[in-house]
């Protein structure tokens, strides 16, 4: 598998990272190098092995349905670049 310049632009756009055109060849080389390295995993024979999504075989722990959190709008808003009263304020999103 290898990434062409369009794929690089697309991945960057999906991640909302601005990538100048001049950086694309370098990124393409870097990312393809990483992908090539990861592709070594394809050499492992996984026939009959259940796909594993995480690093452990533990099942999920659940918590009780109790309100234990919240009630701290100031703390939640403390890092907001902009706010209006108790709301976060962001550049207008139009739909």
């Amino acid at each position, binding site marked *: 598998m290898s990434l062409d310049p369009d794929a690089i632009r697309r991945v960057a756009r999906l991640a909302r990272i601005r990538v100048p055109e001049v950086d694309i060849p370098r990124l393409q080389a870097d990312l393809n190098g990483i992908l090539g390295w990861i592709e070594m995993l394809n050499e492992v024979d996984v026939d009959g092995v259940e796909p594993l*999504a995480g690093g452990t075989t533990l099942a999920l722990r*659940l918590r009780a*349905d109790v309100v234990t*959190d*919240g*009630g701290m709008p100031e703390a939640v808003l403390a890092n907001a670049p902009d706010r209006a009263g108790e709301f*976060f*304020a962001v550049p*207008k*999103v139009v739909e």
Partner: protein
Amino acid sequence: MTYAIEGSTGPWEVVVGLEVHAQVISKSKLFSGAATAFGAEPNAQVSFVDAAFPGMLPVPNAECVAQAVRTGLGLNAKINLVSRFDRKNYFYADLPSGYQISQYEKPIVGSGAIEIELADGSTKSIGVTRLHLEQDAGKSLHDQDPTKSYIDLNRAGVALMEIVSEPDIHSPDEAGAYVRKLRSIMRYLGTCDGNMEEGSLRADVNVSVRKPGEAFRTRCEIKNVNSVRFVMQAVEAEATRQIEVWESGGTVRQETRLFDSARGTTRPMRSKEDAHDYRYFPDPDLPPLVLDKAWVNELGKKLPELPDAKRARFMAEHGLSAYDAAVLVAERANADFFEATAHRRDAKQAANWITGDLFATLNRTGRTIEQSPVSAENLGKLLDLIADDTISGKIAKDVFAVMAETGEAPDAIVEARGWRQVKDSGAIDAAVAAIVAANPDKVAEYRGGKEKMFGFFVGQVMKAMAGKGNPALVNEAVRRHLSP
């Protein structure tokens, strides 16, 4: 009878699949301990997990998982004992983490089916593809400022069940019946309050059209439709639009659209081309969700009687018609009210009073059955007063009107107003004799063969007795006095 839309090139079938997003009833959120109550101050019910502060870890709420399982059981669906949470990646201002935790490849509930009832009394089974748990996003307000959108994260992280139907729905009526039935089942189960005004139930409507016998054509998805009526209107408007596109030689493009309820039309959503590239992958913060079979069985044993079973029982046990039974079971509160009223009484009569006078009163005054001024106990007492001949069916209507107005008990109303039925044959005889004596010309007409006059005498006697004469006794006395 198959629904079809007549185009210029002949009839078109409509194919609809629904994705219903139902807010789970729980005290706290799916992955955090913040509260879920509606109507709190902005950002007052937000934890650092919901606001996606770095390093915060999600821990699932056992009750939300149980609610999804209960709903799955109520939809006659397969419960998957192993399921998994995935990240659905997209950018939006009310989604602080940049991904929604959802279930993609392995949902908690697999395929099931529900029965819907149609206007002509027939039923139809609609397949449910799956149900999965996911987080709701925050709420954006776009109309508060000319250049800014305001974000409230109170709803961010609240548990939703997304329930996906098979494309088994073929008309606006079927789409409406499906949403109503789903809502009814979840309200019985207590897993979703179904309040569409508060956004607890929203539907994405997938619509395509085809010529009879054809395979599926391209579908469009109409997002976020928030009432049963709008779902029905959106199906019809979108199907009509697609037929026009096909018939004018065009091609329907797969896209996401919005329903404009003011205009009754759909329009394309102005979203970016990459909006559907969600790049799902298993959430590394959350190991697989493994359920204990015994725990699932235990939840199954505790499910309440659901609408279909209740309807069948009302028909078998109480002799109700399919229609009356369906009307009464649609809301659990109505069914409970009926059972309390009908207990050891004439069930058919109880059903008639509830679906007739009581529902009319509640509709007129904009009340729910929980706010009914007439309690089930008092309506039952009213039926008793009719059954033991204390009042006539006609006076009962007047008593009911006072009950609806004041909330008083029927026996007190009858006593206070002196509405007790007169069964004293002496008093009835006297009233009849007086009317007969006062109308010699009418008596002669009756005896001359004009039998219609009988009704005149009964009416006059009843009027003289302020409607309180026992109808059977009055009839009998009038006949006796008029016979030559």
